[in-house]
């Protein structure tokens, strides 16, 4: 268990209760998605997970130890739990890509050479070496997002939290970011994202939390939670299209019942093999009857 919260509550100055008692357990190396509509408390929870906000009640545990809020402990936490914000424009503030990616490592107190090395390594890893000397506001949305991710990666965090990582990206940009997220996860970084894109959560995550009005209203493996129509309705979300179609197919006995398909190719695979043939049968035919083709 790398991160855990117990009865986490938070309310803003103006009295709005953003979180009303959140218990989550994040296992190391997993891909976690928090799903819910805007304003359900996802971003607030994320800021509590890396100590940017301090809970009014409840605790956040990091590696089993309750989080402390003195500046030394906070530094430690923030080094280990990196956040990529939804709006890349807010996250990239240095005049060049190089300086931006180097911002974190410099603040961690690395020497100039170490920073250089880390930045080069990260730029290469994320595949943005060619932009190194560009001012960020000339980049496309997907490129900016990669720079924002690089800025956090260069601090070598154990956990990466991404708020709506695919928002506003076109399909090509989105696919690139998705590949990057998976690659980072394979390198043993625990990945946490928030999204209101059910297709993404369903197809990408190992474990999904549903949030609504500051509460966790459901959690589980994606194939379990996303078939719970009650839960989806409560969260104002719809079922992932692939799953919806699969359910319809299965109800009509057109698909083999083994694994829930997560993508269109998987869905297609679940269809019964083409050797099976269609024939029209009048409704009064019973099993055991003989039909003339």
């Amino acid at each position, binding site marked *: 268990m790398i991160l855990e919260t117990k009865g986490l509550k938070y309310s803003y100055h*103006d009295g709005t209760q953003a979180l009303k008692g959140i218990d989550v357990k994040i296992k190391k190396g997993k891909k976690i998605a928090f799903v819910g509509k805007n304003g359900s408390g996802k971003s607030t929870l994320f800021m509590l997970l890396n100590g940017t906000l301090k809970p009014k009640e409840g605790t956040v545990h990091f590696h089993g130890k309750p989080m402390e809020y003195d500046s030394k402990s906070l530094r430690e936490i923030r080094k280990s739990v990196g956040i990529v914000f939804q709006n890349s424009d807010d996250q990239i*503030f240095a005049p060049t890509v190089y300086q931006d990616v180097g911002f974190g490592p410099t*603040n961690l107190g690395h020497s100039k050479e170490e920073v250089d090395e880390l930045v080069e390594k990260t730029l290469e890893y994320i595949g943005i070496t060619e932009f190194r000397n560009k001012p960020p506001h000339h980049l496309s949305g997907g490129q900016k997002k990669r720079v924002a991710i690089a800025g956090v990666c260069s601090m070598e965090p154990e956990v990466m939290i991404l708020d709506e990582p695919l928002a506003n990206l076109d399909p090509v940009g989105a696919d690139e970011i998705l590949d990057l997220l998976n690659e980072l996860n394979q390198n043993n970084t625990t990945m946490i994202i928030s999204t209101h894109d059910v297709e993404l959560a369903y197809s990408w995550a190992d474990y999904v939390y549903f949030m609504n009005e500051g509460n966790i209203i459901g959690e589980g493996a994606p194939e379990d939670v996303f078939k719970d129509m009650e839960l989806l309705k409560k969260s104002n979300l719809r079922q992932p299209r692939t799953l919806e179609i699969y359910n319809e197919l299965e109800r009509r006995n057109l698909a083999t019942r083994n694994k829930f398909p997560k993508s269109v190719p998987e869905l297609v695979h679940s269809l019964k093999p083409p050797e099976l043939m269609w024939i029209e049968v009048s409704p009064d035919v019973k099993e055991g009857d003989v039909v003339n083709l």
Partner: protein
Amino acid sequence: MTNILDDYALVSPLRYRNNWLKIAIVGFGVLVGVSSQSFIPPFAIALCMSFTTVYFGKTSLKFYLTILSAPAVFVLLSVIIIAFFFGSGTEIFGFNIFNYHLGVNTGGLDMALLVFSRTLSGMSCLFFLALTTPMVELFSVLKATKLPDSFIEISMMMYRYIFVFLEVAWGIKYAQTVRLGYKDWRTALNSLAMLSTTLFIRSWEQGEKIFISMSARCYDGKLIFFEEKRPIRANELVLTCTYFAVVLVLWYLTRINSIF
């Protein structure tokens, strides 16, 4: 996060009362307070205005006290200086420092108290205005001053974009904080400079974008003003007049410094 009082004013139960009445109340309090020669009328004003803001305006008392303490540092520092340097009369206490005698006498103390009470009354009037009258209501008042339209239009657009940029600024500041950008003051200065620059560039671009979108809606130098008729109610008028009368009587009784 900075507390923007305007956000509280927008949900205040006193928001939809007559603007001119509120301005008259504030103007009256500010002027009587600052011209009073005794600390009694200012304290009375502060009490009435605070009561109105908290009771009728439904501002939480805790929050009200917090914002009231904001000017405290400046006021206390200045009041202490006044107490030491100002006025004559019997010395109340004093001490020697570097062969230099510092003392507080009755005159100085009186003056310090007076200045303190004036500031308190002035601030409570300002808070009454700020917490019950959102800026969007005041634009029609501003329009009535017959100041140049360009000035009022700039004020209105500035109002709108203050909030847009505040959000940007806080977003960047969070992002910098989580990457340890405020760990010591040198780093903080550098972070702040980057923040300001990003903000500056963003605002410049925003200015151009707004002009394009305004032109797309046929902008030819006219903005609409929003004013609604809100008649003054009888009970409001009675209450205000009573308040004015009480304060004026106090002010009259205390107009010669020596009475108190």
